[in-house]
């Protein structure tokens, strides 16, 4: 099958109408940094490409009263450079800054990162740690689902044929909350994450952990929350000893998950490093 048509959507309405019309015959293209490779390798064979990279409604970062909303077509560069996203969200900015190379960051979008459902999608762990809600849209209207629920399997997203990801929403971080991130790549640029860990914490004056959410990348079929480790840490005092203990707890969780895989030994060991970096960064951001 050949691509017969490329629709450059001028606005959200045109994108939604086109998607509704062509459904499974079509594919959305935002930055194209994943799908162009899939097209080349004939992994996807759409007749129609719907280009949403210039749709204004999808390209905005909005700061509302209680939450932040990032449009699906917002690029990594835009997130990395955004002044609207304050330093407590450093984990998300870092994740964006560490994607690929400047060329990839200028084109690649957060929506594409999510919808491609790669285990190593770098912005997914911080978005999970932020307990993000995905705003999904079609001609019929909007629906909101927790981001985690969109992931069905590696490369499989829970969207209907006529739906697109509109944006990602998460609560604004308060003074005693912050988001850290650490990526383990095999070199300093153009490196697919071997492990990515993002930690969002809330602590009180005594360093007691009031709330914690941990997002993991490249440790499962898609980005995951580390809920049992979160439970282990919640309500405890976050001193260095306890951080070490938590890292060992996470290690044993990952060992269980990766049982039988050749990467088990390395990843379960190295995740302690990424976890400690991410949580220490979050604590530092709160103290700063």
């Amino acid at each position: 099958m050949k691509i017969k048509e490329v629709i450059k959507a001028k606005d959200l309405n045109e994108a939604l109408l086109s998607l509704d019309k062509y459904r499974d015959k079509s594919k959305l293209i935002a930055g194209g940094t994943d799908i162009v490779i899939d097209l080349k390798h004939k992994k996807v064979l759409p007749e129609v490409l719907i280009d949403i990279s210039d749709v204004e409604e999808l390209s905005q970062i909005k700061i509302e009263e209680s939450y932040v909303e990032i449009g699906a077509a917002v690029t990594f560069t835009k997130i990395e450079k955004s002044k609207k996203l304050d330093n407590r969200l450093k984990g998300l900015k870092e994740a964006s800054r560490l994607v690929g190379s400047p060329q990839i960051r200028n084109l690649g979008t957060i929506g594409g990162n999510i919808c491609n459902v790669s285990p190593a999608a770098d912005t997914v762990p911080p978005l999970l740690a932020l307990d993000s809600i995905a705003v999904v849209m079609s001609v019929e209207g909007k629906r909101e689902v927790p981001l985690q629920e969109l992931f069905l399997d590696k490369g499989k997203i829970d969207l209907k044929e006529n739906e697109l990801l509109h944006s990602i929403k998460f609560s604004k971080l308060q003074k005693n909350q912050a988001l850290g991130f650490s990526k383990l790549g095999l070199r300093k640029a153009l490196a697919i994450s071997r492990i990515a860990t993002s930690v969002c914490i809330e602590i009180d004056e005594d360093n007691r952990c009031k709330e914690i959410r941990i997002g993991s990348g490249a440790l499962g079929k898609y980005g995951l929350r580390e809920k049992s480790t979160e439970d282990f840490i919640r309500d405890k005092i976050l001193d260095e000893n306890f951080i070490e203990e938590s890292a060992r707890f996470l290690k044993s969780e990952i060992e269980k998950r990766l049982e039988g895989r050749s990467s088990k030994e390395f990843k379960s060991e190295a995740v302690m490093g990424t976890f400690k970096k991410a949580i220490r960064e979050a604590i530092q951001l709160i103290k700063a």
Partner: protein
Amino acid sequence: MKKRGKGVGIIFYGTGYGNGFPDISKAEAELQDDGKVAIYVGATEVGQGAKTVMTQIAAEALGLKVEDIIFINEDTMVTPDSGTAAASRQSYNTGNAIKKAAEALKALIVDKAVDKMKLNTNIGLKVENGNVFVKTFPSRKISFKEIAEDYKENPLKVEEEFIAQTTEMDEETGQGAPYWPYTFSACGVEIEVDTETGIVEVIDGVLAQDVGKALNPKLVEGQMEGGFAMGMGYGIFENLNLKKGKMKNNSFTNYIIPTALDMPDIKNVIVEDPESTAPYGAKGIGEPVMIPVAPAILNAIHDAIGVRITETPVTPDKILKALK
């Protein structure tokens, strides 16, 4: 925790095919209508700067500017065999052949100049900037272009060859001197190991290379920087990941080479000690520049974490395993 270490690697390397294998380069030099000189060699430019350095050698030998050398290579239809761009041999071997051809053409041009200027002898003639003249009587001169006019149909052309001196090793004892010439280099690095993730970062480096004579110091530095990057990739990144004879890492997505961000600012030290058999003293350095880098890095890792790693590339998983 981050642990730092320093390490050194020192090597010597025999350039050329060696071990008695015939190592032959041919080159042709031809006087053009306009007085420029064309050089024909079958040497391949692979980014190392062969075209530049070989043009310089011809220009130097002929007393011409580099702009007056027309350098023709790689086209096997019109060029003689100059051997492979391998074994760090092109500057030395083909460089020598070019020098010989350029000198032979120059001698021929001088002979023709003697005839045309009706001189008694070629003694005391000088060749400079495309002119042949009597040293003590510079206005008595003739240009290459004027000489070329007589050979429009059948241009003045010479072919020369250079054969490196190499001898076979004794098969029984492994003794002998299989290469000529040898070059020497040394590398020092400082690295940092992240003991939590196993990542090795090369933070500083110095590379010293014996070059015989640097015909083009900038190009030598280019080779040194590139060699450092390749040696570093070999030491800590590059992995074909062979599984049952199949290359698993068969694209640059997973066959990791260093990026600009991974490269430290390195200090290059060019060591000059002209080689008597080499064109203007220059030895080949294409390969030697990369060889001491990985040993230096592995030694530095040992210095940093106290564990000796004996398999490259030293990827994070190997470091973490070694630390256990």
